[in-house]
């Protein structure tokens, strides 16, 4: 059923009793053309693009819990593409362009809000680094502006630009096309659209093994609901990637760390854009519901616990209070964690693996949400063609063996 104001109005007359399921929840068939392991935003998007752009509809998305229950449902919803290196710029801006029309494409309001992402500079080193980003962005055709401290404060009233704080704001970069989106809606929107095209979404189905044939190629996945066969498998399992890939005997250059986030109680509008600071480790925006959404850095050790230490939360909030001293009395309402899979160069891995028929999409670390449509689109193209999409090609798994890293460590730090 098409979503629109009119259909909502019509449904109101029948007390909303006739809305269909947003996605089907069938029992898995015995085989598919493609299986996507991982029902987060990336995996669901990949299934959608396989069906909508490549005509491959005999697809299953296999998810061990409920769709969007991993990092997709836990992130701080920031979307931007102002990365440093050309390969990254192409990757994230590809995603950003898809974001700009996503609600219409999926007929689902993902609430993509291009309210601008401002990244603050506090030191001479920051200024140098950000100006390099700016120049690179301009060359790549990505919108990027430099703001003085005063202009930054004008763009985000309430920002503390006093020269008397420990790390005064000396300027900022601004990407106006960047912003936020409603994370759950992205997963549900892709699920609904994919399901409508014939993709089976199988929840509560945990992959326990990857079956391979005598020639080493994949034959299917063993799951808690039995064996499901497929000649092509795309693994998109974020923090759990190492566990899945281990089933195929593939070692991954990943480290899974806890990443925390928190929301405040809902407030009347006060922060109209996204503000990020690498130097003092904090990023903040305000959701359409009024909650302030605040992100922290990762805890420093490998953990799948989806929790983290108080010191991380405290460290982020003390930075937020320096940037916005009027928020000191605002209260944290909810705090949670996820598992982020980090690579050494803080760039993702998207492409083929040494196992024929097995594809992987991972290593997005703290920055996966913004790439959701792009990652899904590129994973779908790679699986459909059997060769990496040109934008994905530099992010191959074998770049580590060759030493051709895409080192965004400068860009990433704690940013998203």
């Amino acid at each position, binding site marked *: 059923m098409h979503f629109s104001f009119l259909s909502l109005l019509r449904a109101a007359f029948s007390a909303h009793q006739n809305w269909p399921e947003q996605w089907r929840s069938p029992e898995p068939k015995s085989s598919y053309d493609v299986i996507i392991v991982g029902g987060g935003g990336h995996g669901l998007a990949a299934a959608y693009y396989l069906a909508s752009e490549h005509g491959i509809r005999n697809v299953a998305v296999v998810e061990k819990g409920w769709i969007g229950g991993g990092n997709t449902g836990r992130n701080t919803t920031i979307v931007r593409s102002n990365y440093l290196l050309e390969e990254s710029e192409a990757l994230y801006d590809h995603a950003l362009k898809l974001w700009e029309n996503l609600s219409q494409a999926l007929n689902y309001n993902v609430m993509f809000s291009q309210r601008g992402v401002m990244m603050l500079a506090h030191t001479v080193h920051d200024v140098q680094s950000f100006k390099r980003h700016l120049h690179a962005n301009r060359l790549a055709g990505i919108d990027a502006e430099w703001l003085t401290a005063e202009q930054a404060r004008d763009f985000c009233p309430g920002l503390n630009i006093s020269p008397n704080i420990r790390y005064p704001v000396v300027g900022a970069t601004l990407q106006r096309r960047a912003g936020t989106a409603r994370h759950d809606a992205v997963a549900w929107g892709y699920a609904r659209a994919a399901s409508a095209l014939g993709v089976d979404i199988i929840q509560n189905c945990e992959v326990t093994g990857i079956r391979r044939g005598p020639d080493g190629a994949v034959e299917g996945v063993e799951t808690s609901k039995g064996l499901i066969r497929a000649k092509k498998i795309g693994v998109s399992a974020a923090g*759990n990637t*190492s*566990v899945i890939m281990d089933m195929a005997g593939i*070692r*991954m*250059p*990943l*480290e*899974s760390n806890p990443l925390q986030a928190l929301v405040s109680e809902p407030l009347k509008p006060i922060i109209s854009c996204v503000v990020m600071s690498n130097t003092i480790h904090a990023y903040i925006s305000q959701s359409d519901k009024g909650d302030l959404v605040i992100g922290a850095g990762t805890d*420093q*050790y*490998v*953990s*799948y*616990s989806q*929790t983290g*230490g*108080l*010191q991380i939360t405290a460290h982020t909030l003390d930075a937020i209070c320096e940037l916005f001293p009027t928020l000191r009395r605002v209260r944290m309402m909810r705090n949670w964690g996820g598992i982020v*899979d980090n*690579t*050494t160069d803080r760039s993702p891995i998207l492409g083929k693996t040494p196992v024929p028929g097995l594809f992987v999409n991972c290593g997005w670390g703290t920055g996966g949400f913004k790439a959701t449509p792009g990652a899904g689109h590129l994973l779908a193209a790679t699986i459909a063609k059997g060769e990496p999409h040109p934008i994905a090609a530099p992010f191959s798994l074998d770049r*580590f*063996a*060759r*030493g051709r890293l895409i080192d965004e460590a400068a860009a990433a730090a704690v940013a998203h």
Partner: protein
Amino acid sequence: MLLITCPYCGPRPEIEFAARGEAHVARCAPDATGDAIADFLYFRANTKGYLAECWRHVSGCGRFFNAVRHTVTDKFVTTYKVDDPRPDLAALVAEETAR
């Protein structure tokens, strides 16, 4: 905040320590090539379960030491000195389950 037992100083809060990653990683040979170097530089165990890892007590004795911790429960099973041999994980796990 984890409570970590430094083999030299006893139990101390996590903020006194820096995590260093997987323990017992053999440095590659100076003439290593290809996968051998890449493995050493970029690949580490990312176990969902018992992991042998290395920590440093930076705000204490400054010593590195190793630990076995379960990466889902975050519970430490044991900590030991850096030149002690890698503990028998299977035996440790059996002990833990028995407890």
